[in-house]
């Protein structure tokens, strides 16, 4: 295809991405290093026959003029990144100096909003991802033994948790684990404690969110692994059977290695997707117990105050986190591309 033809074919989609993805990223970065202008203060000296008093007031007009003349605000460098709401450098240094053990240091860190969110986001990402891969693999192996007719029905129901709107899915779960809901009732019967409330306990809330995450994403892993199982090397399986391999050995030494590229694929995709965990925290109304980076951004932007600079700084830090998680994917794609050349 000629460059010219390519350009015209690609223009609409390229323009859409340039204007609404690339430009906003630039805008977010700029916002994160600027803040709204301080109000202009004027000091008026009023003198009475006996004494003079100085009065400082906000010059409304000058403030408005300044804000209109330079709507971006003033450049503050990395101040927003380093303040208490984000990296909180001063507070971390203070905690490091004053706390006498590592445990105390981490509990101090847990009081800072950004580190609290990072703590949950990483815990969530790195527990949900392996668990959903294991569950997805188990379902795929089990479903593969069914007859053709049953498979369709099982796949239909298996897709539901993944297809459903994340906010809706988490609400459905949340209503069930409510201490008046069916699962909440069951749990308090199980541990014989009528006052048990998932909503009130931080560890239980974390577990509930992780269970939701696995429930929501396991179908994806299942579908991918199931497709992989359809291309199993039959001859290798037969050869291993002749050599007397047990069922478990066949799974361990043939099926799993065959599916390994798919496991990597699912793991990489899911690490990125779980890192942006957000809707379950809204749906479970869990912000008192668990926050994530996405939730902080959402919270800063919402409401009356709309702290856009704070949200922008967290956005940039989140993008950096995603970039770290994405780098293995990029390396892999690069190798594939090299291989094809």
């Amino acid at each position, binding site marked *: 295809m000629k460059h010219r033809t390519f350009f015209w074919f690609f223009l609409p989609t390229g323009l859409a991405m340039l204007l609404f993805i690339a430009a906003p990223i630039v805008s977010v970065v700029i916002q994160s290093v600027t803040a709204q202008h301080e109000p202009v203060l004027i000091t008026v000296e009023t003198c009475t026959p006996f004494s003079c008093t100085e009065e400082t007031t906000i010059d409304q007009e000058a403030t408005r003029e300044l804000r209109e003349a330079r709507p971006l605000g003033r450049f503050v460098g990395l101040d927003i990144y380093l303040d208490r709401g984000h990296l909180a450098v001063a507070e971390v240094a203070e905690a490091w100096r004053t706390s006498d053990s590592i445990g105390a240091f981490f509990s101090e860190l847990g009081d800072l909003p950004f580190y609290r969110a990072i703590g949950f986001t990483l815990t969530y990402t790195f527990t949900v991802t392996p668990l959903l891969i294991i569950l997805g693999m188990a379902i795929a192996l089990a479903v593969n033994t069914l007859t053709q007719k049953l498979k*369709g029905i099982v796949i239909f129901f298996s897709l539901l948790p993944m297809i459903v709107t994340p906010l809706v899915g988490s*609400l*459905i779960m949340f209503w069930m684990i409510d201490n008046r809901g069916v699962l909440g009732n069951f749990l308090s019967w199980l541990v014989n404690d009528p006052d048990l409330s998932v909503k009130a306990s931080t560890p239980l809330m974390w577990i509930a969110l992780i269970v939701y995450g696995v429930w929501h994403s396991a179908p994806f892993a299942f579908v991918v692994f199931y497709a992989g199982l359809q291309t199993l090397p039959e001859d290798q399986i037969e050869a291993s*059977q002749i050599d007397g391999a047990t069922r478990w050995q066949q799974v361990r030494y043939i099926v799993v290695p065959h599916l390994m590229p798919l496991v990597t694929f699912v793991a990489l995709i899911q690490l990125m997707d779980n*890192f942006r965990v957000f809707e379950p925290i809204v749906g479970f109304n869990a912000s008192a117990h668990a926050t994530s980076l996405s939730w902080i951004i959402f919270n800063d932007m919402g409401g009356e105050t709309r702290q856009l600079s704070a949200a922008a700084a967290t956005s940039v830090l989140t993008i950096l986190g995603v970039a770290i998680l994405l780098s293995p994917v990029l390396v892999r*794609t690069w190798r594939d591309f090299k291989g094809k050349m």
Partner: protein
Amino acid sequence: MASSALRAPLSLRVLTKGFIIFWLILAAFPFIWTLWGSFKVELDFFSIADWTNALTGANTERTHGSPFTGAGYEGAWVQEEFWRSVINTFIVCFFVVCTSLTIGTLGGYALSRSGYRYTFWLLITALIFRAMPPITLVSGYLLPFFEWNVWGILPTTIIVLVAINQPFTLWMLHSFFQNIPKELDESAKVDGCTQFQAFRLVIVPVMWPGVITTGLFSFLLAYNDFAVTSMLLSESNRTMVPAIAAFLGTTQTEGNVMFAVAAVVSATAPLFVLVMFFQRQIVSGLTAGAVKG
């Protein structure tokens, strides 16, 4: 593995069947439970006294004279005007799917037919954009949209969702078009077609399976989005998902959680139908990237 000598021992078969039943309950029970409960009153669905009330509807019968009631649906759809959000959702989804498929098809086709190195870099850029959580972009939209006075209306949200959708659409259609033999459009070009004519006359007629699969995922993205729609739409233009989120704030104080339950069931129903009819396409779409890549 059909031969009877290789059949699994009974214990393993029982274990497998048991596990599948366990998974099916895990996957489907929450939906069935909520659907059933949405026809009850709050005291039944959230029952502290006796959980079987949710099944029998004892309090519902006392209040409404029958074990089922549509009060939650009436409250959500009529009183809270949930139907407005439903209409908005379908307007947004329709235009997002149509636009993103139109421009995505052209772009994906071009990427699959051009052998130059820059196509690789464009695809990599798209991959990076795909990994970006949409919410990180939203704070970049707000200021300009306020400035230009386009915040809160449906067209703005549609364009933003189309753009966010593009990276995924491009990857999917790119790999799909690569499976259509190049000889098809090349022979058309030999016969005197321009590239666009070759695309329109030769490729368009055979591209529908891939386009439908991609369209399903575009639809799901637009339908399920919460981060973008809740920040970019004004109260009167809300789509379903932010409307449900807004219900939560108001219902807890007014004691009509059942409105939210009814709204949640209403929002799940179209997805249910979608999976029923397009199961095969969804499965093939999910595996397309994985098995090939």
